[in-house]
Structure formats: C-alpha cells, structure tokens
C-alpha cells in the first residue's frame, strides 16, 4: 500500500512535469515551423515570379529586336533592290551576323507571291495569298505568327513587316530559328525539375517544354488562369507532387510565358529545416523525459528514505516513552507489593516460631504446617526478587562515577559466564579494539548490562554455539557488539523485548526484567542499546557507551 502511494506520487509528478514542459516545446516548435514555412513559400513564390517576369522580358526584347531589324531593312532598301536575290542574301548575311536567329528571309509582293527567298528551303514562287498571316500583315503592317508547321513540316514562326512604296505594298518576311528561340527559354530550366515554355492563348506549346509535351501539343493548362502581371499558383500534380507555376503574358498578349518547378525541389531547404527541427524537438523531448524520470525517481527515493528514517525515529520515541511510563507504574506497583510481603514474611516467621512450642511440635500435622510455611516463604522470596529487580537498587542508587575500562569489564563479565558456557560448548570469541579510552561511568551498571545480554545470548543458543564479542571506538561512543548464532527473536516479539516482564523463558527462570533494566541503564548513561535479529540466524546487540572522559585528578 505504501509502495502504491509512492508510485502514484511518482506518476503524478512525471505526468505534470512532462505536460508542462512538452506543451510549450511543441507549441513553440510548431509556431516557428509554420512561420518559417510561410516565409519560405513567399520567398519561393517571389523567386519564381521574378524568374517568369525576367524571362518574359527577355523574350519580349528578343522579338522586339528581330522586328526592329526587319523594319529597318524594309525601310532602308527598295523593293527592286531586295528582290535581287544576291542583294537579299547579302543583307541576310549581315542580319545573321549582327542579330542572329534568322533561318531565312523572303520578299513577297502584294499578291502574296514569294518573289525572292534566301534560306534552306525552296520556297520561291510559292503564293501566300490565302494564308492568314498574309491578310494580317497586309492589314496591320506587322505580324508575328504563332508557331506552325507550314510548308516546311517542322515547327517555326515568322515575323513579317509590310512596306508601302509607290502605292504598292510589299512584305519582308523572316523565319525565326526555333532552336535559338527555344534556347532562350531553356536557360530558365532551373534545377532538376524547373521548366519554362511559351503557350499560345489556347494553351498550345510554342516552344519545346522540358517535360510532358511537344511543340504544338496541348499543355493541359488553362491560360485563363493567368491575368495581367505575373500570376503565381500551385497545382497538385501526379506522382511527383505538386508543381509551382508562374506565368506572364508577353507584350503582344498572344503568348504566355510559363515557368514551373516541382514544389518538392524548391522546398528541399524547408524540408531539411523541418527534419532538423523535428530532430531537435525529439531530442529535447527525450532529454526532458529521461531527466524527469530520473529526478523524480531520485526525489521519491529520498522521500522514501526520509519517511523510513522518520518512522524509525518515531518508533524509538514511542518505545522510550512507553518504557518510561511502564517504569513509573512498575515502581509504584513494586512499592505497594513490598509492604504486604514484609508482613507475610513476619507472619510466616512467627508461625515457624510458634511451631517450636511443645504442644505444636507433637501435633499430628506439624510437619505439614512446616512444609507449607516453607513453601510460602519460598514464593514470597520469589516475589521479593521480582520487586527487587524491578526497583533494581542499582537503578535507584545515585550512579557512581569511576574510571571504566570497557574491555576489562567485558573480560570480567565473560569470565563469570565461562564456566557455564564451557559445559554447554559455547565459545566466546573476543575481538576487542586496542587502545580504547578509559571512560568515566559506572562500571557496576555497565557490567550488569553486559551480563544481561551475554546470559541472554547463552540462553538463545542453549548448547553448541558461538558468541562474538566486539568492541570498537566510533566517533562519539565506544561500541560493543554481542552477536550470538542462537535462535533469534521472532519479528512479532522484536518491539517487546525491552518491555518489563516480557520473557519467553519458563516461569521462574527469567523475570523479563533484564533487558528492561539494561535499556534504562544505557538511556540514563546517555548511550543506547539496539539489536538486530533474524530467526534461525541469531541476534546482534549493539551497545553505545558515550565517550565521557574522566576529569584529570
């Protein structure tokens, strides 16, 4: 029941401590993580958005440059000059040196007829009258096409400018190298999962994307999601997890530049931080757990020990209180009994005296009377001895103070018992400390204590055994230990052995006063007498005699 109380206490302390220390740790960890994650996401969003914006600007610039080159040439040279293919080739050469990315160059009259052409394909004399771009450029003066396959059977786009000369319109048209143009976006394929491409208004790839698609295939991306400026969003993807998208319409409003990246890749920094944080919090929890359990155990154990000490002390106090009260009572009773005993002794004595008279002597039952009187006297003597012991004249007399040699007193006491012990094959083994100080005390009383305990030891053994007698100097006392290997004291008797009249010996053999008197003597001397006993193993009595040095004479 006691153990239950302690473990319950331990459980409560641990629970409360853990609750109090874990809660703030977890709240703090979660808060820091979410704050950090938000900031991190914002930063990534900014980064990708910035990339999209910058890339769109670069593409815009590219187109603007190419358009400007064409416009300048169309404005600078006459129709007649340009339709000379040699001249056109010369200019094409200059264009590609300075600006690059042009695949071919051609001049088309207002009927849509390709009059001059420089390039890898044989497109001369083709008629573009029915083509949509032709109508556009004739109408608005400048046209940049979507990517298409056209006559050439591979994806490309064209830039065309119209010039009016002598009331006639003609068109200078150039094809942009899809490889160079694609390379412009490829430079934005960042990391392992970064992608960048152009889409037209219908979501058709205008450049080769890095993943999942071909030029002119559909991108599965709703272009209506993108508004003005840079648009950013995250989209749940398939097995790779979600992707982050940022897109910006180019200045011509027909092409959409999209930059995308797998969210996981961008988040690696965040995930690493999260792992680190979980590790730190985990270690913290572990440390708190171990420390809490360890300190709680320690505390509860200390408490247990303190309780045990307190209980022992209380028991000793109760014991000495009890003995003091019993002592007073016993002394009172002894006095009251003493007087009637005195009368009885005189009365029996008187009866004996009278039996000496002639008339009684010859009486038939004189012998019986005498015998009875002797018996009465015997038992009065027994009672008288009990009273005598109880009042113990040694106890009641003022203690004498003389020089006491503890070892010599022990030797002397043992020698009194040696004759008896030898016949019962009980060995005394003396382990006496050398150089014990001579104490000031009452040797007779000390001897009485030793005698009581040694004769108890002999009685506990009965026959064949060993009594070890040790003396030792401790800090505050001369300690005498008397150990027998006799029967031992049963646990239920252990708190009674110092009680007056407590005895396990048969009536008439022991009064039950020896240990009581010994206890009293040692207490009065300022010392102590304690014992430890185990049934079947034996008993050790420990006597502490306080160190009181004799006054120098």
């Amino acid at each position, binding site marked *: 029941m006691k153990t239950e109380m302690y473990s319950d206490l331990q459980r409560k302390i641990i629970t409360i401590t853990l609750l109090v220390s874990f809660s703030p740790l977890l709240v703090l960890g979660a808060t820091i993580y979410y704050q950090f994650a938000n900031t991190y996401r914002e930063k990534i969003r900014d980064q990708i958005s910035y990339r999209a914006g910058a890339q769109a600007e670069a593409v815009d610039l590219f187109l603007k440059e190419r358009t400007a080159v064409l416009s300048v040439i169309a404005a600078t040279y006459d129709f007649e000059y340009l339709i000379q293919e040699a001249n056109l080739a010369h200019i094409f050469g200059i264009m590609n040196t300075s600006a690059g990315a042009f695949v071919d160059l051609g001049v088309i009259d207002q009927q849509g007829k390709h009059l001059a052409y420089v390039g890898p394909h044989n497109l001369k004399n083709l008629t573009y009258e029915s083509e949509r771009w032709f109508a556009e450029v004739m109408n608005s003066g400048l046209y940049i096409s979507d990517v298409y396959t056209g006559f050439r059977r591979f994806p490309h786009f064209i830039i065309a400018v119209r010039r009016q000369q002598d009331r006639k319109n003609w068109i200078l048209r150039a094809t942009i190298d899809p490889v160079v143009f694609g390379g412009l976006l490829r430079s934005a394929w960042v990391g392992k999962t970064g992608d960048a491409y152009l889409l037209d208004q219908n979501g058709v790839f205008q450049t080769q994307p890095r993943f999942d698609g071909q030029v002119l295939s559909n991108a599965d991306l709703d272009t209506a999601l993108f508004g003005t400026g840079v648009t950013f969003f995250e989209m749940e993807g398939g097995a790779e997890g979600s992707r982050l998208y940022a897109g910006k319409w180019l200045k011509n409003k027909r092409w959409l530049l999209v930059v995308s990246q797998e969210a996981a890749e961008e988040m690696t920094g965040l995930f690493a931080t999260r792992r680190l944080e979980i590790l730190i919090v985990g270690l913290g929890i572990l440390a708190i757990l171990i420390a809490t359990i360890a300190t709680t155990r320690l505390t509860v154990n200390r408490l247990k020990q303190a309780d045990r000490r307190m209980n022992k002390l209380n028991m000793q106090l109760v014991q000495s209180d009890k003995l003091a009260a019993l002592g007073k009572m016993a002394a009172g009773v002894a*006095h009251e009994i003493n*007087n009637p005993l*005195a009368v009885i*002794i*005189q009365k029996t*004595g*008187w009866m004996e*005296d009278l039996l000496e008279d002639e008339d009684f002597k010859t009486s038939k039952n004189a012998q019986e009377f005498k015998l009875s009187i002797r018996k009465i006297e015997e038992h009065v003597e027994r009672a008288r001895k009990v009273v005598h012991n109880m*009042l113990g004249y040694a106890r*009641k007399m003022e203690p004498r103070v003389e020089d006491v040699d503890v070892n010599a007193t022990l030797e002397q006491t043992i020698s009194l018992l040696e004759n008896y012990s030898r016949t019962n094959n009980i060995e005394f083994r003396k382990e006496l400390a050398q150089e014990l100080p001579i104490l000031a005390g009452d040797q007779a009383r000390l001897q009485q204590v030793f005698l009581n305990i040694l004769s108890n030891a002999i009685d506990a053994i009965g026959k064949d055994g060993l009594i070890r007698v040790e003396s030792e100097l401790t800090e505050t006392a001369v300690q005498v230990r008397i150990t027998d290997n006799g029967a031992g004291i049963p646990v239920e008797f252990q708190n009674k052995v110092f009680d007056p009249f407590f005895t396990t010996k048969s009536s008439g053999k022991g009064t039950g006063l020896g240990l009581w008197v010994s206890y009293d003597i040692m207490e009065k001397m300022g010392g102590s007498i304690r014992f430890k006993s185990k049934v079947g193993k034996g008993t050790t009595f420990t006597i502490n005699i306080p160190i009181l040095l004799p006054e120098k004479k």
Partner: protein
Amino acid sequence: MDRFRVLIVDDEEDFVETLVNRLNRRNLETTGVGRGEEAVARAREQPFDAVVLDLKMPGMDGIETLKEIKKIQPLAEVILLTGHGSMETSIEGMQLGAFDYVLKPIKLEDLLVKLAEAFKKKALHEQKIRDARIKGLTHFPEGSGRPEGGEE
C-alpha cells in the same frame, strides 16, 4: 544483665505486632508503635537500647523521628527500615547518626544480626563512658568525658 529494650516504629500494624511477638520470643524487651509521634513520646517515657525505625510513615516521617529520638536518647542505636526507593533517605539518616539500615522486606535473621551489632556498640560506648567517669574521678580532668550524660 537487663534484657535489651527495642522500640519498633512502623505504620504497618500487622508488621509491628508480629515483629514484636517474634523479638519478645527471642528474649528481647520489645515495644511497637505505629507513628513517629508515638515513638517520640515513648522515648521520653523510657530508655531504649535500639530503635527499629521505618523511614516512610504518614505524619512525622522517619528522619524527623530519628532526629527527635537522638535528641532525647543519643545513645540509643537506630536501625532504619528502608525500601528501594528511599536509599538516599537512609544515607541521610545514617549521616544523622543512625546505626545501620535494613532493606524491606526484612528477614528476621538479618535484623537480629544488626541488632546484636547495635547492642555490642552501645555496650562498648557505655563502657567507655563509665571508664571515663572512673578516670575523671581518679585524675584531674583534661579532656574529661564528653557531656553526653543524658543517660541516667
């Protein structure tokens, strides 16, 4: 020679009565009283060789009685009856001139031994006084007998 005269003083009536009987039977002239005051009154009336005096009595206690008796009869030897608890008192009594003490409950044999010693001592004492008187008659006094002549 006269019989020895003994006064027993104890508040236990049965004890006194029996002890008186037994001592008388042993040819002592014994008187018993139950109180200290009574003992002092008796001492004034007649001389005693020995007084057996209980220390613990109601009324006038043993020590008081001892002092009074010693005033009246300095040569009477007093034997104190003492319990275990009154050891200190009996020591005080002996310092006041009591001859000896006997522990209660007493054995008659012990008491008889002590009484015999007391008588011997008293006899010796009286002998010395007599010798001194004789010397005082034959010599000029120098340290003459001490003025203890309370004796008749």
